[in-house]
C-alpha cells in the first residue's frame, strides 16, 4: 500500500511530462526538429547502444568522474577533518576555500589546460576540485556539529583520545560526511559532463555536443536522458551505501 503510494507520488510528474511530450509530437504542434517524438529518441538510443557508442560515452564519463571524485573527496574529507580539529588549519585554508567556492569552477578549465596539458588531467582535476570543496565543508560541519556531551560521556567512562576518536568522533561525524559525499557525487557527474561539453571530448557531454552541432535532436535527447539516468542511479547507489554505513540514522 505505502510502497504503491510512494511510487505513484514519485512518478506522476514524470508520467504527465511524458504524456505531454507524446501529445505535442503526435499532434504536430511542434516541429520534430526541435522536439522529436519519443519513439524516434528510443530508436536513436537503441542504434547508439547496438553500435556500442553509448556505452563508450558512458564509460569515458564514468572513468573521469570516478577518478576525480575519489581523489577530491578523499582529500576533501581529510582536509575538512583537519580543519575541524585545528584552528590553525582552518584559518589557513579558509581564504582559499571561500575564494574557490564562489568561482565558477568551469572558468578554471583554460588555465588548467595551460598548466596540465590537453589530456585527462585538467578535466580530472576540475572534478576533483569540485568534490574537494563540497566534502571539505561537509566534514568541517560534521566535526563542529559533534555535541560535547558525547565526548564528555566517553571521557567519563575512561575513554582515551584514540577511543574517543573511534567510538565518538568518527561515528558522530559520519552522517554529515555522507551527505557531503552524496552531494559531491552529483556535482562530480555534472562537472564531468560540463567539461566534456566545452572541451569537445567524447563521453556523454561530447555526445550531446556533437548532436547539437549536427542538429540531431533525437541524439541530443538520448544524451540528456543518459545524463539524468546516471545521476539518478548514482544517487540511489549512494543512498544504499549510506544506509549500510549509517544504520543508526532515523528515517528522514
Amino acid at each position: 500500500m505505502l510502497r504503491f503510494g510512494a511510487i505513484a507520488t514519485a512518478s506522476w510528474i514524470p508520467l504527465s511530462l511524458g504524456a505531454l511530450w507524446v501529445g505535442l509530437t503526435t499532434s504536430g504542434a511542434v516541429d520534430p526538429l526541435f522536439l522529436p517524438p519519443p519513439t524516434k529518441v528510443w530508436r536513436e538510443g537503441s542504434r547508439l547502444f547496438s553500435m556500442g557508442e553509448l556505452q563508450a560515452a558512458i564509460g569515458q564519463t564514468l572513468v573521469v568522474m570516478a577518478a576525480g571524485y575519489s581523489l577530491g573527496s578523499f582529500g576533501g574529507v581529510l582536509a575538512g577533518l583537519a580543519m575541524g580539529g585545528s584552528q590553525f588549519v582552518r584559518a589557513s585554508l579558509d581564504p582559499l576555500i571561500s575564494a574557490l567556492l564562489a568561482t565558477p569552477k568551469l572558468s578554471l578549465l583554460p588555465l588548467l589546460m595551460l598548466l596540465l596539458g590537453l589530456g585527462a588531467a585538467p578535466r580530472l582535476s576540475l572534478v576533483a576540485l569540485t568534490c574537494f570543496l563540497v566534502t571539505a565543508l561537509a566534514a568541517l560541519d560534521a566535526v563542529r556539529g559533534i555535541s560535547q556531551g558525547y565526548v564528555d560521556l566517553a571521557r567519563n567512562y575512561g575513554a582515551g583520545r584514540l577511543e574517543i576518536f573511534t567510538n565518538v568522533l568518527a561515528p558522530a561525524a559520519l552522517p554529515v560526511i555522507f551527505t557531503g559525499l552524496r552531494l559531491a557525487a552529483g556535482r562530480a557527474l555534472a562537472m564531468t559532463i560540463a567539461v566534456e561539453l566545452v572541451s569537445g571530448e567524447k563521453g556523454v557531454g561530447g555526445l550531446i555536443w556533437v548532436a547539437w552541432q549536427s542538429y540531431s535532436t533525437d541524439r541530443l535527447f538520448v544524451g540528456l536522458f543518459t545524463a539524468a539516468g546516471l545521476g539518478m542511479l548514482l544517487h540511489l547507489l549512494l543512498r544504499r551505501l549510506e544506509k549500510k554505513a549509517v544504520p543508526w540514522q532515523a528515517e528522514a
Partner: protein
Amino acid sequence: MRIRCTDLSVHYRSNQLPVQAVQDIDLDVAEGEFLSIVGPSGCGKSTLLRTLAGLIEPTRGTVQRDGAVGGPDRAFLVFQENSLFPWMTVLQNATFGLKMLGVGQGPRKEAAVPLLERFGLGGRLANYPHQLSVGMKQRVAIVRAFISRPQALLMDEPFAALDWLSRMALQRELLELWREERKTIVFVTHDLEEAIRLSDRVVVMSPQPGRIVAEERIQIERPRDDKVLVQPEFLSVKQRLLDALRGSAAL
C-alpha cells in the same frame, strides 16, 4: 565512594562576562548515600555535578573522591538527554563502560543482558536509540552506569523528560537497583517529590551564585512505594523544602 567538596567555587566566562556558577560549596556525601540536589534552573546544580565528576576544574576549593579500597576512581554521569550514543545499539551502549575497561565481548554481554531483560529491554538489544522511547533510553543509560563497576553515580535530571507514570516507574527501578548495589548516588533534579522519595538527604541550592541554602535528612522508612507521596511525614518535609526553595529563588 565518599565524595567531599570543601569550599568549592566554580567561575566561568559566558559572553566575556564572568559567571559565578557555584560558590562556597561544602558537601560530604557518604559511601552508599543517596543525595539529591534540588534548586531552580540556573542555580549551578549541573555545574556542581560535572565538577564532582571531574569534567570541570574547580576555580577554588577541592573535590575529593575516595575510592572504596584505593581502587580506580569511577563515578559515572547519567544525563537527561543524549545519554546514549546514537550510533551504538542498546547492547553496545549498555556495555560501553565495560568495553572501556577492556572487558571482552562475551563477558560484556553476559553482564548486560540479565539487567536489560529485567528492565524489559531484552527484545531490544539490537535496536538503535532512535527506536526507543525516552524511558527506555534512560533505562539503558542506568544499566550502563550500574554494570560498569561504578563507585558512584552522578545523575543530572535523568527523568526530567519523562511523563509522570514513566517517571514513577523509573524511580522505583532505580531505588531497587540502589538497594541491591548500595552505590553512592548524587542526583540532581528540580522535582522536589522525586528528590524526597529517592534520597537519604536533600540539599537545596539557590541561584546566582549557586550556594547550598538548606539541607534536610529524609527519615521516611524504606522501601518507599508510590503511596509515600501522600504520607503526612512526606508532606511536612516537602513543605519545609518548598519554603527553602521559595526563599532561595525569591519567588
